[in-house]
């Protein structure tokens, strides 16, 4: 599709009525032509209106609130310049929650590793393949609140986890969610349980789209499964793997549901998003909360930009 650059005529080029057609500018014809120019805009109007109203207008407002001291209620708000941003980066109570993201970031490596392992072995000939695929994937579909309760129950003192550990002779287990030194590990583990299936299914799809004759050729050349993994599978899914790593950075910065549902951010498990939400809706400091939201947005955009540079939409060439 070539985009016709018609600078002189502000017009929507309708493929079936190209411009060159001569038309007497009678009233009816003119109305029809205007309508035709408007047609594409009418089709996209609702979607664009909602996009602007619910995404870009709030985003612009965030920028505006972030340089004020607004509390979300009063009519008056004062311009405070970059004060809010300075606070976001200097107030230890705000900034230290970034460290909590590191637990989830670390966990995401385990998550991607496990997903890659299971996707690889299930792409080879395996019994009960669909059963295992279904079981590993299903947690991703479960309601977040339900997952929160399932794991709160699992982590209870004398609960499932403690009972299982006692079978292996591990008495005196810690308070999995109550102890601030342990809580973040428990929550990050829950997050791995929840999201691993999604990475797994993505990897499995990518591996299965590699043409099977490549494996057959490798088999004939005497390559074992391990060599096939390094030489065929890994390069074949490089792009999706890169995408998952980058998404895990953005994901670990915006962790929200699991800690919010399970601990409400108590015991040192508060994340940046929980902190932002509480600043805005509990402490009524919309100005600072907006600055926090903008900082997060800037980081996510930067990460995505780097990802696009590192892993452009290339077709992987295996031949």
């Amino acid at each position, binding site marked *: 599709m070539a985009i016709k650059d018609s600078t002189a005529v502000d017009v929507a080029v309708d493929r079936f009525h190209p411009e060159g057609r001569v038309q007497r500018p009678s009233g009816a014809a003119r109305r029809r032509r205007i309508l035709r120019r408007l047609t594409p805009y009418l089709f996209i109007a609702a979607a664009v209106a909602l996009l602007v109203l619910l995404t870009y207008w709030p985003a612009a407002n965030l920028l505006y609130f972030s340089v004020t001291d607004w509390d979300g209620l009063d009519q008056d708000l004062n311009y405070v310049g970059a004060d809010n941003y300075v606070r976001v980066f200097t107030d230890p109570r705000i900034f230290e929650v970034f460290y909590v993201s590191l637990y989830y970031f670390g966990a995401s490596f385990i998550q991607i590793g496990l997903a890659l392992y299971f996707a690889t072995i299930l792409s080879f000939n395996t019994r009960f393949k669909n059963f295992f695929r279904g079981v590993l994937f299903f947690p991703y579909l479960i309601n*977040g609140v339900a997952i929160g309760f399932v794991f709160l129950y699992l982590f209870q003192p004398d609960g499932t986890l403690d009972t299982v550990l006692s079978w292996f002779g591990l008495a005196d287990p810690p308070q999995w969610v109550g102890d601030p030194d342990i809580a973040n590990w428990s929550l990050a583990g829950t997050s791995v349980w929840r999201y691993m299936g*999604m990475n797994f299914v993505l990897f499995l799809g990518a591996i*299965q789209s590699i043409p099977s004759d490549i494996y057959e050729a490798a088999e004939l050349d005497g390559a074992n499964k391990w060599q096939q993994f390094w030489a065929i599978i890994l390069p074949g899914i490089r792009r999706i793997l890169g995408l998952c790593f980058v998404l895990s950075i953005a994901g670990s910065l915006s962790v929200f549901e699991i800690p919010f549902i399970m601990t409400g951010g108590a015991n040192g498990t508060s994340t940046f998003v929980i902190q932002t939400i509480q600043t805005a809706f509990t402490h009524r400091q919309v100005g600072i909360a907006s600055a926090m939201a903008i900082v997060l947005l800037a980081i996510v955009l930067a990460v995505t930009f780097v990802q696009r540079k590192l892993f452009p939409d290339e077709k992987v060439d295996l031949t």
Partner: protein
Amino acid sequence: MTTIHSVPRPGARIQRVTVGTAKYLSLVIAAVVTLVPLVTVLFASLKTPTEYGSTSALTPPSNWFNFANFVTAFDSGKMLEGFANTAIVLTVSLAGTIFIGTMAAYGLDRFEFRGKRLVFGLFLIATLIPGVTSQVATFQVINGMGLYDTKAALILLFMGTDIIAIYLFIQFMQAIPNSLDEAAMIDGANRWTIYWRIVLPLLKPAIATVVIIKGIAIYNEFYAPFLYLPSEGLISTSLFRFKGPFGAQWEVISAGTLIVIVPTLIAFLFLQRWIYKGLTSGAVK
């Protein structure tokens, strides 16, 4: 589907058996780790309060048909209201998403117009904006429209934030040949008729995918109903409110949790193929 048939080589047999055992062992362990948390919740939900207090989490219930906790959860937990509200919000939002999304996709795929690239860019960048934090400002918009604490707020939000759906529709529409449109045009059909009579019916598979994927997403959505609809419950928020009144009554909380999970399980068992396909195409644009 790619399956690799190993060519038997002498000497490699023993090694292959060990590797095979390790493979199945790891799969079984993974399945156990995935299922045990859910199974223990099932155990707890079928126990009486005294039984729950006196048995370990991994002891199966004595009576597998003790549904008393489910009745308590459903009644006192107001889960019926949650399901009804979720159904309303789900239906209206899905219908809205489909109409708005297919129309936008039709406009973007079948026309050339000024500002098209800009619109594409706007949609693309919007996928990157983190959802929860921007609620700080979205809340003010919804509140300003007088929609706070109404289901309309949720419906509007769910309709307005679905960019993935538009991409899926566009992807699918590119496969519908233009000659169909042209033929209809020659027969005198206008653009709306073409969209409504020709393109929309052909988009059925894409619509089904969007209904499933977005349906699950709305069913699971927690923060939007928590923030925008405090006085009523959607299914997530009804369950979340178990935290207070049922405090340590884990047998009731477990029952409520399962009531939320079971519809997802049923949907998954029947729609597996669509779910895998939809999620994969949605994630890798």
